[in-house]
């Protein structure tokens, strides 16, 4: 079977590393990665724990398909209690680190406690050791990767680390691996920093075994054939990346602009996938150099960009001249439309900063957007920003604010708190476009009703990849639903959420689901894991994971009153586009959603539901 059946427990206080057998009873019920790590966290951590205290734990977890031949099978997740939200936090990353961890023979690493001084963990198959990281502390993600490889004389080490944002307590710091792949959301990097853990370096040569190799290769071949013939996964994503959505969502009138004041951005085309392909007038080269793929992926949606060397943001800064991870849709939106900035090169630079220092570009851009609104209405006095003129549309202000946030200096320390705390501090909590403390992604719930329900109920705060109803409401995949109606959205949202929990727990990428349904994934899991994994069992497992996360959040102190949206989304109508005059009608969807979930009217899983799911 494709679990290694082994986890590594690391005690940062005692500086010990020890192997433990994986709880296979839990693995059978929660699969792996997000589901299984959430089970361990729920069992081992008090939900009321201070996320940045030594009592919180940090789990790096792979899934049973991670490191196998399954397409997109390179994923791992970082699970903890999140400092940005106080909810359970789970952030998913691609690249090559996850597969390498599996090759070294580990399904999971659990970090406990807090080290007195900076350390990093180095794993070479069975051998795991904590090593001093004093020389690495204060270094960027990019420097850290290079220094660790040099120290060990092994260019093939795969490394996940925090940058200065994680060290300095930025509440949306991420964990970055392979230079520009990231467990970006929910502030998992801040927890790592609070533990004085700088990096995890892994080299594995043991491979991954599957239960039924013949059946597995047949299922994998069938899956890959589907990806190779589906127009989205074979053409759209490799050619245009996720960035193709900029114009789609803007035309649909659901592109949150200038901190949600508007729903359409006049500069959208200039920051879109189409623009990334065009030659710049300045140097005759396009922003996009090529696409890139994570481990085992046959889609290859990644963007590798190269900034114009003459652009003000990188002039005299050669480290940003090399090709690196370019803009994805969410980053382009947050750094661009949310701040009103339409300078593609500036957005690419700030995206590099996010990778270099380890920050979530969604929360960074959305928080700078909120700061710009606070500044423009006079709530942030000009003398508090250190000379930073935070006006909407200013590429210079965006770049400077991001630099300061990345290194934890000046006004950047305020940005590093996220928009909820920033807006509260300056007396306008309603201007924070967050749910449970986490910033919205790139879809305005006034123009797409179902995604509003998803934001309101997501177990890690506002999020689109917990239940991507956009697929149906906008992209007509697998079936089209009207984005402006609320009817049927409760069931749609639940279905997406439960299926996504399966994908996130299996070790594969959510983007595979533009071509695959659970019936395509089930035979791959069954052949890899052994036993029987019919679609019904997987969907029930997804529902079990969702309810487990909900239970953690309820125990942490959250309740139905937190399943809501900002006043702007519920009261201020969209000004333009198909949703002109409309707000989000969450009140029509939420009771239906609780009912569909088998929860009480107060949003609590009923005893019957918990029994059905064996929770």
């Amino acid at each position: 079977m494709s679990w290694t059946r082994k986890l590594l427990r690391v005690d940062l206080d005692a500086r010990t590393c020890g192997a433990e057998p994986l709880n296979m009873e839990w693995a059978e019920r929660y699969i792996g990665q997000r589901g299984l790590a959430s089970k361990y966290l729920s069992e081992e951590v008090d939900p009321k724990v201070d996320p940045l205290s030594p009592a919180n734990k940090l789990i790096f977890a792979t899934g049973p398909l991670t490191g196998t031949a399954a397409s997109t099978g390179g994923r791992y997740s970082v699970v903890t209690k999140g400092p940005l939200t106080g909810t359970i936090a789970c952030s998913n990353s691609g690249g090559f680190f996850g597969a390498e961890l599996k090759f070294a023979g580990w399904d999971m690493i659990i970090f406990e406690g807090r080290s007195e001084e900076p350390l990093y963990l180095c794993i070479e198959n069975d051998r795991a050791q904590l090593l001093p990281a004093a020389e690495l502390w204060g270094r960027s993600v990019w420097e850290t990767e290079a220094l660790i490889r040099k120290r060990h004389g092994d260019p093939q080490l795969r490394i996940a680390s925090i940058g200065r944002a994680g060290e300095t307590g930025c509440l949306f710091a991420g964990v970055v691996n392979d230079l520009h792949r990231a467990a970006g959301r929910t502030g998992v990097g801040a927890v790592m920093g609070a533990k004085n853990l700088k990096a995890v370096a892994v080299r594995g040569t043991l491979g991954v075994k599957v239960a039924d190799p013949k059946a597995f290769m047949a299922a994998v071949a069938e899956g890959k054939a589907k990806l190779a013939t589906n127009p989205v996964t074979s053409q759209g994503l490799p050619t245009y990346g996720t960035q193709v959505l900029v114009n789609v969502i803007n035309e649909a009138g659901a592109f949150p602009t200038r901190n949600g004041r508007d729903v359409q951005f006049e500069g959208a085309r200039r920051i879109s996938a189409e623009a990334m392909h065009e030659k710049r007038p300045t140097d005759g080269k396009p922003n996009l150099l090529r696409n890139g793929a994570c481990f085992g992926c046959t889609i290859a949606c990644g963007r590798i960009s190269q900034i114009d060397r003459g652009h003000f943001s990188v002039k005299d800064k050669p480290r940003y001249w090399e090709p690196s991870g370019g803009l994805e849709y969410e980053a382009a939106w947050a750094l661009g439309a949310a701040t009103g900035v339409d300078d593609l090169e500036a957005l690419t630079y700030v995206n590099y900063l996010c990778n270099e220092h380890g920050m979530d570009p969604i929360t960074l851009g959305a928080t700078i957007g909120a700061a710009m609104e606070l500044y423009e209405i006079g709530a942030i006095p000009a003398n508090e920003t250190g000379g930073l003129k935070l006006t909407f549309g200013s590429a210079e202000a965006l770049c400077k604010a991001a630099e300061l946030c990345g290194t934890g200096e000046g006004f950047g320390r305020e940005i590093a708190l996220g928009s909820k705390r920033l807006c509260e501090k300056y007396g306008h909590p309603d201007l924070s476009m967050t749910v449970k403390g986490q910033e919205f992604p790139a879809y305005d719930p006034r123009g797409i009703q179902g995604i509003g329900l998803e934001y309101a109920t997501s177990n890690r705060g506002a999020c689109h990849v917990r239940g991507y109803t956009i697929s149906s409401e906008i992209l007509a995949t697998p079936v089209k639903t009207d984005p402006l109606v609320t009817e049927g959205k409760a069931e749609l949202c639940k279905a997406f959420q439960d299926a996504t929990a399966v994908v996130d727990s299996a070790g594969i990428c959510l983007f595979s689901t533009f071509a695959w349904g659970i019936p395509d994934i089930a035979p791959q899991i069954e052949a890899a894991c052994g036993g029987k994994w019919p679609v019904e069992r997987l969907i029930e497992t997804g529902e079990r994971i969702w309810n487990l996360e909900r239970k953690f959040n309820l125990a942490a102190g959250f309740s139905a009153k937190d399943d809501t949206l900002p006043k702007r989304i519920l009261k201020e109508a969209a000004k333009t586009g198909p949703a002109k005059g409309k707000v989000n009608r969450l009140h029509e969807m939420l009771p239906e959603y609780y009912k569909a979930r088998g929860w009480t009217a107060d949003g609590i899983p009923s005893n019957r539901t918990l029994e059905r799911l064996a929770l």
Partner: protein
Amino acid sequence: MLVTVKLFASLTRFLPAGASGNEARVEVEQTMSLESLIARLGLPHEQCHLVLVNGAYIEPSRRAVVVLRPEDVIAVWPNVAGG
């Protein structure tokens, strides 16, 4: 009458002469249907996955009966996705 046509992603190459960025102004007859416009632009039928008129999605079965009005904005994409 004039309408605005916007073609994106791999359909960009079907933009008529005189287009700027991803859009062009196109002269059409008063009674022209959406489907007729798509045909006139030479867009492969199977690649017109998302067709929006003034931002609202038009199902494939309705494209023949939707009649264009002056200053309509028609936007078309092949099957794309992101996240």
